[in-house]
């Protein structure tokens, strides 16, 4: 029987794969952005899964700090990408 850390870690790898696939296959920019975000969540899941030792045991705080940083950077990058898209669409209109 697999433990929770293995389960979520493998899920993270599969999510990263699904995201990578969609980021290549989809042509719409916002969809690609969603795909990259799903990829990011997959990577975060792998990190946190390796930090997990059991339901009543303290986890390893270092991956937690890394992922916290990652989430903020991911949303900043997403916002920048959306602003770029908007600027492109505006310049198409002119």
């Amino acid at each position, binding site marked *: *029987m697999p433990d*929770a*850390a*293995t*389960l*979520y*870690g*493998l*899920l993270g*790898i*599969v*999510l990263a*794969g*699904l995201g*990578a*696939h969609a980021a*290549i*296959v*989809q*042509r*719409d920019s*916002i*969809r690609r952005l*969603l795909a990259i*975000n*799903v990829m990011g*969540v997959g990577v975060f*899941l*792998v990190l*946190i899964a*390796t*930090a997990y030792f059991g*339901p009543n045991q*303290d*986890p*390893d*705080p*270092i991956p*937690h*700090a*890394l*992922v916290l*940083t990652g*989430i*903020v*950077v991911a*949303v*900043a*990058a*997403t*916002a*920048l990408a*959306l*602003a*770029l*898209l*908007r*600027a492109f*669409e*505006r310049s198409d209109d002119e």
Partner: protein
Amino acid sequence: MKAGALLYLDLIMVILMLVLAIGALHARSLRHAVILFIVFGLVVALAWARLRAPDIALAEAAIGSGLAGALLLAALRDRRPGDDATRRAPVWQSVAVGGLVTALVVLLAWAFLEVQGGRANEPLANIVQATLHESGVSNPVTAVLLNFRAYDTLLELTVLLAALLGVMSLGPQRSPMRAAEPMAAGLIGWLIPLLILAGGYLLWVGAHAPGGAFQAGALLAAAAVLAHLGGRREFQLPGHTRLRLLAVAGCAVFTLVGVSTLLGSGVLLQLPSDWAGGLILLIELFATASIATALFLVYLGGHPPSWNSREVHPDA
């Protein structure tokens, strides 16, 4: 028996995340895709809670589900109705990429299982536990973020600032919202003070329990987003000078602290353990202000009108 039964919850969550991710990636309508992505963020936040990572669960609920959701919904609003075409690569390409990605996933899974089998005790985690009392805070995640690996966090604030500058330079902000109807205005009216209060609470509690500058900043930004959504006339951003100061305050104070530790002890960002608690609170206070400002301005998708006063008269 105990851990075994909890595995059913894990299985449910894993399946839900897979279904939601596939839905968000391949839903026919882009609007549905975005809503599914927001719900995906919610389930991921629950997964963080389940994996004993409440710090991350807080950040995910506030940023991953709340702010990113509002950001994406606002981006959809910008789009013209005709734009929602589902253009995809041809099937053969899709299958070929699928094959390659599957191979990569199998390889990574094998590597992950290898690593999982070998990890008995984490030396780094033990070092954190052993030196926690010198860090000035008792929440290990905050200790790592703002003391042991403070330069990471400084660079992160810089990345956030860089993203903000990028968004600011791309054009004017989105058109304002119309004023909310009384019902929504009332709801917004009491949610905003609650968000500010919760933000202050998370900032304070971050020293010894999950919470801290990022979660607090995200909640404050959410309060500002709500005020913007309500279209309140009396809601105005600070002037452009103050806004710029707020945006760089976090980086500036952090760097100042770093430089003074460099002068004092010869090591960049080596906080003296007697002062560490106070210094961390100082950094976090300004970081919260900067994070909130950056996240909100980034949500607006461009520079606010007050920014223009500089652009029209560059020499003023």
